């Protein structure tokens, strides 16, 4: 595990944003790619939830259950990301605490 890359990723995640940030290094290792993919997923589901709500309120889509499901998926996905973020931070802190 590359310490520098973890630091980069955490700095990207800490400011609350749902946007996808481009990776800082030229080629990412599989972990950073995975993380970026995950952040993109959060963004996508949130946008889809927004679209669902807009469609419902404008009358274009009148299926309530689709809107509710889209909202739920976005919420669950976001919670998952938050947990992953917590784990990453605690892992980072553990590593930083390792006395050399």
């Amino acid at each position: 595990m590359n310490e520098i890359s973890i630091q980069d990723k955490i700095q990207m995640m800490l400011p609350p944003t749902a946007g996808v940030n481009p990776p800082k290094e030229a080629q990412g290792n599989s972990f950073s790619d995975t993380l970026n993919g995950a952040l993109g997923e959060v963004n996508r589901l949130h946008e889809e939830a927004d679209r669902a709500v807009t469609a419902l309120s404008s009358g274009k889509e009148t299926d309530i259950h689709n809107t509710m499901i889209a909202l739920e998926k976005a919420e669950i996905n976001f919670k998952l990301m938050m947990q992953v973020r917590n784990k990453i931070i605690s892992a980072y802190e553990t590593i930083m605490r390792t006395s050399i």
Partner: protein
Amino acid sequence: MGSEGMFKGTISILEQGLDLRSMKHNLLVSNIANKDTPNYKSFDLAVDEEMQKLTGTQRSIALRKTDQGHLPAGGFKDYSGVTITKSSQGVEANGDGNTVDIEKEMTDLAENNLLYDAVAQILRKKFQGLKNVIQGGS
């Protein structure tokens, strides 16, 4: 990490169930409103058969990419394979070409309603379960 993976499988099947029952409900309501219309032929949707068709051939509904502005909630699901049957001749007791059997429509309405409620309830429980798993494990 495709977290969409946790939404495939059972949840996707449940979603399809809701969509199909919603379609069937509209057909039933249409039949009931046209109970006295001469030459009206009643429509029907066999939800169980359609569910088997959908889960047999495609595990999850194919998401088609269309014009951004037209995107309904949950993406554009492909339901073109769903068969809606129109009764050509039927309960001729109505005498004027109308084939609506009102007792059947009413019982179908109640049954469809209940099954919709059941699926919505199950979906709710699944979402709750996912949330618990995510939050409870810290």
